[in-house]
């Protein structure tokens, strides 16, 4: 039972983290766009969910704190409080405290009570002003708590109804589903919450209760007819009522109808004036009809959470376990296939092929399970850009593209830090102040663009800004000064910009538009390399900088082509291989010693892996060129033989081999031998670098 409770708390933490990211993103959008109704409703719902789930799983302080914020956004939703930058800032600060409360037991720093109190005071001041300005009825209530929902109830009970204020009347038919209680919900608590919105009259219907022996003890058989009367001062929307049932909407049947206004009409508003005998014809009745129609069309759907309908939350560790097991299965299956091939028994071969097909399908499916969109990772940088923009006095907008691009969760988990450093650097040193931008003829507001897209078996993540760009000459001079390059060496832009990723490159001295470009960049390089990724930088002076991270889609299992070079077996990722063509001794002789082949009239340079790996044995008469695509175009990798395709479980080579750039891992073959997994991009880059160095002298290390 204790473990179950803990697993619920863990699930709550996961959910709260996601909601906090969504909240931040909505708030920052609200800050830019002003009071967008849908955004306000999303903020309210997210706060309501955090509060409700928090209370359910014992995060009482969190629930109480969030409740106050929720009330403020209810005011905004009802149009009684404006969506001001001040409220956005207070709520953002509150989110930090909520995050601390969520993570508290997970070993993170606890929330700051003084800060929490100051935030709530600020929020109260705002809501108080709103009430003084727009809601005289509520302002008359001296109880400060009257501003929250409970207070509104007190006002309606103590003042509104007794003094004859016009009320809305809602009729609600609430039929809990069979699993409602088992799911941890309690209908009586829901009624209590509903009762805080106005005067609630409940009628429990007991007809459905079966004889004792047939009664399932944990099932709810009771259904309720409810009548909710609200005052004009505490007008309740359909959304607000549905929000009470937000956690159980999938596990119950809910019919909500508004009868319109009831009671005395002396102080009636527009809706009351429109009252007819058939109450449902009123505007509020239209709301009800719409709600019922929507319910009919989307039975069981939860408002505000439509995109999650039909999804299942599973701990990441379980998926990792599954992928590990599939990895083991793939290795064993490879052994089985090798044994079956040797047995020459048709039946065994057929079973082997069938298992291979199933394993392949299972692998693809299990890998898909771990793919998650980069949206959450990207969205959290809105806050960073907002906060840094405020601190640095820079007006910067973060634009996001390709947020739906999916990447293996393991890769995404490690992507946050490098992106944070890149964005910080763009904010600190790339983007200019509004004055400088205006002086340079640019718009005062700068843009940082975060984009993701697929490129073969990789994902490209781009961080670009329209700032001042990198001072190429300053970087070059600094690289020479530090002994990273020779005086007079002909360096490409890519090579020069690559220096900024050297450890501590810019920390020794301030250089205009350069200082700080190296701070944290070493971390970026290390992290990206540990993910078997690469970094490219392009920059134009005065126009901006783009840093492109090329990351593998997955770190676990890939489709590969098994090749041999000399006595060794190697795996080339299938996704980066375009085609395979023969290379004869005659072809080599015809090229006059140059490493190029003609493929359908097109010249394709190639790298002979025999030479790269220093294999001295005699090459076969016919070698094979594996044509791969890299950033610079098509290129060939020459191997002795191609043995066929294979599913490859990637194993890390360990830290000893981390400097071997052209090898991205190892795998165990069906016969138990080990094959290295080659990185075609790196192999080609290294070959080009070596060629270039042979042509013009060494660049690095120091001359």
């Amino acid at each position: 039972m204790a473990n179950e409770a803990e697993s619920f708390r863990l699930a709550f933490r996961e959910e709260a983290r996601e909601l906090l990211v969504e909240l931040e993103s909505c708030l920052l959008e609200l800050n830019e766009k002003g009071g967008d109704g849908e955004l306000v409703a999303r903020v309210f719902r997210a706060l309501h969910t955090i509060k409700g789930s928090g209370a359910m799983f014992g995060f009482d302080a969190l629930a109480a704190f969030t409740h106050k914020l929720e009330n403020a956004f209810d005011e905004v939703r009802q149009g009684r409080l404006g969506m001001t930058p001040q409220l956005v800032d207070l709520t953002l600060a509150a989110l930090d405290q909520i995050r601390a409360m969520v993570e508290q037991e997970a070993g993170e720093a606890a929330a700051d009570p003084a800060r929490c109190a100051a935030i709530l005071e600020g929020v109260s001041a705002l809501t108080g002003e709103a009430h003084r300005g727009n809601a005289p009825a509520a302002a008359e209530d001296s109880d400060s708590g009257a501003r929250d929902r409970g207070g509104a109830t007190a006002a309606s009970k103590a003042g509104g109804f007794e003094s004859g204020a016009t009320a809305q009347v809602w009729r609600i038919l609430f039929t809990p589903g069979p699993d409602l209680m088992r799911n941890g919900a309690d209908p009586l608590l829901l009624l209590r919450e509903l009762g805080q919105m106005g005067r609630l009259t409940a009628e429990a219907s007991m007809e459905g209760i079966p004889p004792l022996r047939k009664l399932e003890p944990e099932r709810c058989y009771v259904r309720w007819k409810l009548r909710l009367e609200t005052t004009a001062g505490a007008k309740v929307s359909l959304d607000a009522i549905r929000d009470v049932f937000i956690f159980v909407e999938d596990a119950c049947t809910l019919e909500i109808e508004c009868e319109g206004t009831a009671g005395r009409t002396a102080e009636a508003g527009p809706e009351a004036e429109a009252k007819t005998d058939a109450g449902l014809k009123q505007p509020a009745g239209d709301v009800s009809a719409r709600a019922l129609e929507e319910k009919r069309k989307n039975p069981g759907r939860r408002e505000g959470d439509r995109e999650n309908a039909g999804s299942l939350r599973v701990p990441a560790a379980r998926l990792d376990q599954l992928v590990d097991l599939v990895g083991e299965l793939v290795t064993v299956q490879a052994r089985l296939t090798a044994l079956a091939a040797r047995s020459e028994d048709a039946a065994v071969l057929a079973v082997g092929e069938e298992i291979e097909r199933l394993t392949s399908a299972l692998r693809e499916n299990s890998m898909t399970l771990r793919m998650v969109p980069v949206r959450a990772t990207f969205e959290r940088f809105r806050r960073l850009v907002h906060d840094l923009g405020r601190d640095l006095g820079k007006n910067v907008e973060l634009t996001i593209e390709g947020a739906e691009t999916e990447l293996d969760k393991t890769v995404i988990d490690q992507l946050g830090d490098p992106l944070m450093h890149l964005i910080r650097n763009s904010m600190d040193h790339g983007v200019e102040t509004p004055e400088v931008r205006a002086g340079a003829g640019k718009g005062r507001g700068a843009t940082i663009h975060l984009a993701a897209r697929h490129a073969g078996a990789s994902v490209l993540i781009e961080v670009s800004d329209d700032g001042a760009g990198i001072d190429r000459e300053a970087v070059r001079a600094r690289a020479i000064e530090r002994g990273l390059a020779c005086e007079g060496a002909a360096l490409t832009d890519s090579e020069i910009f690559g220096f900024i990723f050297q450890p501590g490159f810019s920390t020794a001295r301030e250089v205009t538009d350069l200082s700080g470009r190296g701070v944290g960049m070493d971390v970026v390089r290390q992290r990206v390399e540990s993910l078997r990724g690469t970094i490219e930088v392009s920059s134009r002076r005065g126009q901006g900088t783009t840093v492109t991270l090329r990351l593998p889609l997955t770190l676990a299992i890939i489709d590969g082509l098994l090749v041999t070079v000399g006595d060794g077996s190697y795996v080339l990722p299938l996704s980066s291989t375009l085609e395979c063509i023969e290379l004869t001794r005659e072809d080599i002789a015809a090229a006059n010693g140059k490493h190029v082949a003609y493929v359908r009239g097109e010249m394709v340079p190639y790298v002979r892996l025999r030479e790269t790996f220093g294999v001295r044995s005699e090459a076969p008469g016919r070698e094979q060129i594996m044509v791969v695509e890299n950033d610079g175009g098509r290129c060939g990798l020459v191997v002795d033989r191609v043995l066929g395709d294979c599913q490859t479980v990637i194993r890390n080579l360990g830290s000893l081999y981390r400097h071997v750039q052209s090898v991205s891992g190892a795998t165990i073959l069906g016969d138990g031998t080990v094959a290295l997994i080659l990185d075609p991009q790196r192999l080609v880059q290294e070959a080009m670098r070596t060629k270039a160095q042979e042509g013009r002298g060494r660049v690095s290390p120091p001359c």
Partner: protein
Amino acid sequence: MSVRFDRSEAPGTIRLEGDIDVGCAAELKALLEEAMAPRDGRQRGARIAVATATGMDVTAVQLLWAAEREAQAAGMVLALEGPVPEMLRTALREAGFQRFPLAPHAQDDADDGAQRGSQG
């Protein structure tokens, strides 16, 4: 929360303490069935004590309701022993249950009446 069956005196008393919720629903059902099962050819029954109950969810209300209905049909005694805490009574009334499931035991009622009479 706890559900106990005190069998020391016939017909026995089921004592509900603390918050009686879905966590003890299965246990309460089993005890009610035990209390109402015929023994030696005779219908039994039980008293239900809720004086120390602080809350009750709908699963408990349903069970008591179903048990009371069957007890009445079978002519057996299934009644409250002692008072119902006012907080509990109010909570259930606000939740739309017109009355608390189970009536006070006749003897308790008589005692209560006598006490009220002596106070008056």
